[in-house]
Structures are given as structure tokens and as C-alpha cells.
């Protein structure tokens, strides 16, 4: 389909960019803060929670939910900008 052309390539590139940054945050929350750095983070306390433990059993899950809604918003804007949304 010829009409997709250059705009389509740019749309897909921007889409991949959004996915990259969101998945980077996903990785940092799910793996870096909750697992790899949990031992040093546990020496900091957030009320009754050791911080690493809190990220692992609460914080990361909250961020996961927020990430998906942010993705929806960013993609909605992108779809509108490139006029490929469903109306």
C-alpha cells in the first residue's frame, strides 16, 4: 500500500521509541530496584517497609499499571498526529 509511505516509517519509529523507554522503566522497576539492588535498598526504610522489599511487593506493581495507561495516552497522541487513529 503506497499511501503508507514515509509517514508510516516515521510513525513506526516513534512507536518503537515509546516502547523502548517504557520497557526500560519496566525493567528498572521489576528487576533492578526489586531484585538486583534489593539488599542495599533494604537499609533505607519507608515507614515500616524496607525500601527494596516495598518496591518488590508493592511499588513495582503500581508502576506497571501506570506504565500501561501512559502508553495508551502516548499512543493515542501519536495516532492522532499521524492520522491513523480509528476515529
Amino acid at each position, binding site marked *: 500500500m503506497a499511501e503508507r509511505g514515509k509517514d508510516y516509517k516515521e510513525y513506526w519509529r516513534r512507536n518503537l521509541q515509546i516502547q523502548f523507554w517504557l520497557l526500560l522503566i519496566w525493567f528498572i522497576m521489576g528487576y533492578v530496584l526489586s531484585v538486583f539492588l534489593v539488599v542495599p535498598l533494604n537499609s533505607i526504610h519507608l515507614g*515500616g517497609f524496607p525500601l527494596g522489599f516495598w518496591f518488590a511487593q508493592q511499588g513495582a506493581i503500581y508502576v506497571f499499571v501506570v506504565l500501561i495507561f501512559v502508553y495508551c495516552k502516548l499512543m493515542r497522541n501519536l495516532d492522532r498526529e499521524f492520522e491513523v487513529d480509528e476515529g
Partner: protein
Amino acid sequence: MGILGWTYFWVGITFGVYIFIAWRSRVSDTKGFYVAGMGVPPVANGMATGADWMSAASFISMAGLISFLGYPGTYYLLGWTGGYVLLALLLAPYLRKFGKYTVPDFVGDRYYSQSARMVAAACTVFISFTYVCGQMRGVGIVFSRFLEVDINTGVIIGMCIVFIYAGLGGMKGITWTQVAQYCTLIMAYLIPAIAISTKITGVPIPQIGFGATIASGPDAGKYLLDTLNVIARDLGFIEYTKAFASTNVNMLNVFCIMFALMVGTAGLPHVIIRFFTVPKVRDARISAGWALFFIALLYTTAPAVAAFARYNMINTLNEKPYAEAPAWFKNWQRPGLAAWIDKNGDGKIQYRPGAPFEGRPSWKMENGQHVLGQYQQPLLSNKPTDNQNELYIDQDIMVLASPEIGGLPAWVVGLVAAGGLAAALSTAAGLLLAVGSAVSHDLYYRVINKTATEKQRLLVARIMIGVAIACAGWFGIYPPAFVAQVVAFAFGLAAASLFPIILLGIFSTRVTREAAICGMLAGIIFTAVYIIQTKFLGVSNWFLGITPEGIGTVGMVFNFIVTFIVTSFTKAPPKEIQELVEDVRIPKGAGAAVDH
């Protein structure tokens, strides 16, 4: 009204609602049967996905698992939630744009190959079936403890209910009953959690409560988690919040387990097909957000329930004379999920690390009666171990018993039973639909009888659901000994087979049918062989010390590598396939979903 009366009350009401919904949403065409006519609003789809995903294991077992594991329970919490981010970003919108009925549909069309379709259908059936067996056990446990009926009768009742709404309404019936089941299970989970949190810490929000201070009793004013750490140290356990207590933790293995759970979640066919049911691409994106929101309500409550249950359990049982042990402990002895063996003969319950005896409790019986010891405790015939632990608690009872442990009224206990049933039945229905549609749509209609009429196809779909339910019921009544061990299979195989192939099918226009088939087979065979070797044949974890739970990650990488290598040797896919791939990447035009 007692616990039994309230349980019948809640189970009766909820079952009535499910059947009423099934009758209202019965369907007469395959589009309604397979994808609910693609007319499900995103929030409702989010709830239905939540109920579909949260199984008996999530509802009944997870908090108990965390309760006994402490920090390492995190792998499951994050593994089973993080997958939704992958699903929302990388799969759901594109598969919805593709606009067909099943996962093998996408694989077969994208890879222009009947063989690829059949491999994908076989994976779908195997993964979903593995999972169903666990649900049936959950149904059996709830029925036997709360309704005091025989486990087999319970399984048969559950099967009949599922058949009524899955057979009548297909995906449409399942979707709307799952919305009702989500409401039931989340109420049943949150009400006791809020009550116990308020009771122990005075904070009505469990997510905050388990980081707060204890309100009364000998530990008043101390943080709950600190107290749990102190108790654990005193009794010889690893501290509750302590991560990586032993110095030689295989970090690569931890990473692989979590990653396999996440990728496996995103690759589970019964979850993926939920995103085919919404009207638009952007509804698929947002309903993944709602799904995770509704799941997170339970998944962020579970670690709180785990901490409260552990505190309560130790406080009410450890060092207490058996004669004064609470009623719930004695109730749960009957189905063999709790037991006490008085090793030192002091009549008190000692809770320490290690198993109290070998195997699961087996009671000493005489003429159909328990043989009682000097403290009126039922005696065991198990061989005691030589540690000091005298207490056996199955992790599955931590949630089911938590209202009783926390001293909540009988109506709450009954509600929890209805919630456990809702969780098990909703997941079973979703899985059985995935199995039924893979066989009736992908094998029968797309391969065996391509000229089948709409009416024939619908009939075959209903028959296949019936057959699948009958098989699942069989496994519920005669559970294969290896049920608990094959769960790793479902996630590992989904991670190693379907996920990489769907992902590449969207993000690469170049991957060919030969590559996809080789990749899927390489991933499945490697993963299956490794799990069988290490779980059943006693071979050590030979690949970098990765345990079978995490091997799906390695299988996935293997799948990717094989796919890339074979792609570079084979002829590029036809022009129209490359067009198809570029077309699924943009949302525009999804309204015109194709029936075929």
C-alpha cells in the same frame, strides 16, 4: 446462620447469577462464540481478563506462598503482573488489529502455513490443559472444606456450571460471567483483608497496613514487618523481609524465573484471546491497563494478607497447648491440610523451621475413626523428622482460613469460599474456551473441513467445549500425581513457543514460515526435554544451574536464535504477508474486522 449456612447462601446466590448471565448472553453465531462479537467494553474486558487470569492459585495459594517464603514470594508477584506490560505494549493492540479469532489463527496466517497453525494449536491445547488441572483441584478443596461434600461431587457440580455458561454463550457468556466472578472474588479477598488489617494495625488499607505498627497486644507500637523479622529470628527462620539470605544465590536463575513467568503470562493463549473481544485497537491497549489495575488490586493485597496471616498464625498456635488451639486449626485437620505431632510430649504446639514429618499427613484410623492421642489430637502414621518442628500447615489454607484465624464473622468465611470458587471457575472456563476454539476453529474448520457451515462450526465448537470439560473433570477427580510439577510447563512452553513467534510476526516483516516452525519446535523441545530431565529423571540443572521454572527464558532465547538463523537462509515471505504485517502496526481500519 453458621459458616456452612452462609457458604451455601453465597455459593447459591453467585451460581444463580452466573447461570442467569449465561442465559441472557447466549449466542447463535461463531463470532459471538469465539470473540463475543468483538463488542466488549474495555473496562468490562479488563475485569473479565482479571478473573480469567487470577486462578485458584492466585486466590487460594499465592498469599500462603508469600507468607511462608517472605521476600522470595516477590518473584511470583512481579512475574505474574509484569507480563501485562509486555502484553499491552508488544502484543495486544496488533493482534486486535489483525482481527481474527484465535492465537493459531494469527500464527497460521502470518506464517502462511498450515503446519505453523497446527504447531501453534497443539501448543495452545497443551498449555491450557496443563493449567486446567490445577483449577479443578482448587474447586475440590473449596467444596470439600466449606460445603462438606465429597471432592468428586464438587468437581462435577463445577463442571456442570462451566458447561452451562461456556456451552451456551461461548466467549460472550464467559466474558459476562467473568465480570460477575471478578466482583465476587475481589470482594471475597478485600473484605477479610481490610478487616484483618484494621484489627491488627488500625489501618483499614491493607497495602499500607502491613507497613504500619501493631495496634495492641504484647507487640503494640512496633512495626509489623520488624516484629515478623524478630519472631522469625527467634524461631530460627530466615527474616521475613530479608532478600538473598544465603550467599550463593544464582542471580541469573532468579532473573530467568521472573522473566519466564512474565513472558509466559504474555504468551498464554487464553489471556491473549481476551484482547480479540474489544471493538477497537485502542480498546485493546486500554483494557490491558484495566486488566492489570484489577489484578493489582488483588496482587498488592496478597503480600499484606501474607504478612498478617503469618503474624496471626504464629501468635495463635506457637507454644500454645493443643487443647486450647483455635477451632479453625482443628477444622482444617479433617481434609489433611493441617496437623500436629507432639514430638517432645509437652502437649504444646512448637512451630520451627523444617518439615515436622515425612510427606503429607496420613492419619491413624481404626474402624473409620481417628485414633486420638493423650491431648485428644488425631495421631499420624507419618515418620517424624528429627527437627523440633511439630506443626504442619498447608500453604493453601492461609487465605481460606484467614477470616477464621482473624476471628471474623461467619458470613465473611462463606464469602471467601464463594470467591475461591469464582476464581477457579472463571479461569477454567477461559482455558476450556481456548482449548475448544483451537480444536474446533483451527483444526476442524481451518484444516479438516474448510467448507463447514456456520451452524456446523458452532455445533463443533460446543461439542469440543463439552469434551474439554469432561477431560478436565476427569483430571479433577483422578488428579495425575504430577499436577503441581507441570505448572512450570505451561509458562515455560508459552514463553518458549508462542510469545517469540507472535512477537517476531509483528516486529519483523522478514521472518519466514520455515524459521517460525523451526523456532517454535526448537523452543518447545528444548524446554520440554529440560523440564522432564530435571523434574522427573533426576538430572541436575545442567544449563548454568537454571531451575526448570526458569528454563522457559532460555528456551525463548533459543527460539529467537534458531528463527533468525533459518530466516537468513530462506526466501523472504510473499509480498502480501509483508503488507499484512505493516497493516497490523497501524490502528486505522480495525473497525472492519473480518469474518472468514
